[in-house]
């Protein structure tokens, strides 16, 4: 618990009244967590509570000292029409920090170094999402939080982001990935937080323990298992032996 980035005990989350309560889990340094659940399950509410944007309604939540966050929001939450250049977007994500490496380093990491001067609004959806990731990387984060990063982006960008997250995690960056697309969850995601406020379901822990939890099958009438797709291990719903991709 002492080495935890986030440690929650009996946490209650929600707006005004609890959406989910009694949540207990611990996220350690350098771990890769997938935060899953259907739309409206409370994933974003949980993350906002973890990040201190929203107040917990109950329980305790401890955050590690000196935590440096990198945050990639859903693209729909940014005002893309603002006439900012790619460089400006990245710089605006680190106004509170000094002595950072040049912006180009983070942009090179996502393959967009040549677009530094381009208007953000002129980029494709996939390029915009890469810029948002570069903005988070520019902060040199110890934990990277991504909220549905593959929504509305092309397949190549999805793949590139997945590889990049894997690399970053290999370099010791903790990754918290929020998604409802189970068919994009590879073996790199070692820990799961599964939540569904409508089913009052909350599961947290190592990948296999969550996948094997009987409450998951009880809630949805189907189980989850890892399947190989084109050399990658991804998750799929299983119902009577038939694998069916979620969402």
């Amino acid at each position, binding site marked *: 618990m002492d080495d935890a980035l986030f440690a929650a005990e009996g946490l209650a989350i929600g707006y005004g009244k609890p959406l989910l309560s009694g949540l207990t889990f611990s996220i350690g340094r350098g771990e890769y967590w997938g935060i899953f659940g259907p739309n409206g399950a409370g994933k974003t509410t949980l993350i906002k509570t973890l990040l201190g944007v929203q107040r917990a309604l109950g329980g305790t939540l401890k955050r590690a000292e000196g935590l440096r966050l990198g945050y990639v929001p859903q693209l729909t939450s*940014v*005002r893309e029409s603002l006439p900012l250049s790619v460089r400006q977007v990245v710089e605006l994500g680190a106004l509170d920090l000094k002595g950072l490496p040049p912006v180009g380093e983070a942009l090179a990491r996502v393959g967009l170094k040549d677009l530094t001067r381009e208007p953000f609004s002129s980029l494709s959806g996939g390029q915009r999402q890469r810029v948002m990731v570069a903005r988070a990387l520019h902060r040199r984060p110890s934990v990277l939080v991504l909220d549905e990063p593959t929504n509305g982006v092309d397949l190549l960008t999805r793949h590139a982001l997945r590889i990049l997250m894997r690399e970053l995690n290999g370099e010791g960056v903790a990754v918290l990935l929020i998604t409802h697309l189970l068919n994009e969850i590879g073996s790199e995601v070692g820990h799961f937080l599964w939540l569904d406020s409508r089913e009052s379901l909350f599961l947290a822990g190592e990948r296999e323990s969550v996948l094997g939890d009987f409450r998951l099958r009880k809630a949805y009438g189907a189980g989850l298992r890892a399947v190989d797709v084109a050399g990658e291990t991804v998750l799929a719903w299983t119902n009577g032996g038939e694998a069916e991709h979620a969402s």
Partner: protein
Amino acid sequence: MLLDTLALVKWPLLGAVLASLPLAYFGVFLLERRMVFVSVSLAQAALCGASMAFFFGWEPRLTGLAVVGAVIAALALRGRDGRGALPEDAVLGILYVVLGGLAVIFLSKSAQGGLDEATLLFGSLLGVSPKDVAVLAAVCGLLLIMGLILHKRFLAVAFDPETSRVLGLRVGLLELAFFSGLGALLAVAIGQIGVLLSFAYLVLPAAAARGLARTTRGVFTAAACIGALGSAAGTLASITWDVPTGAAICLALAVPLPLSLVVHRRE
């Protein structure tokens, strides 16, 4: 001849140009954030404050500032998360109507001779005195300092308020500073340029600039230039053709819009 004419209206013109620059700056943010209606309601609050001041015999700018401050505080307390009993645009609409109604009633019962609704709605630019300009210049100076310190933070919040919160920017305080600055400017300027011209300065230069420029610096510069040049052109036109100055400036500010739309479409 032109210089002689401009010399005659130097204080009104200076007042209009001074007001146009910060209003164009605020306008760029408001337009991008789709919050234009907030500015109309604040202008209406300043108008209501000025009317109350005439009725009660108070200082118009300070009363305007107090009413604008009250409206900002009410909106800040309500928040912008869309969880109130009424949608935000409905709340702003109600404020606009109620404050406008109050302004008209206070003015109609006011003992001020010659002052009517039209004066506050369209302003009385030609009556602007050196003292008025000095007060406006002082407020603009303070806003310039605020802009120099907080401009990047305003941009960060405008672009991505959610991440700004996550990264520890004090979004609530920044919003308060932004709207308090705008409110103070409107409270001071409303007696000189009126509600209609205030609104025109907020919307028209920013709307034209976003089609003409591709960078933030370009958009802010273009908006400021359109505001200043539109003020000069409108004032000159009002003297040449003997038409109301405020209305002439409003129309002059709208002139670059078609060009902006053409440029925008070509891109």
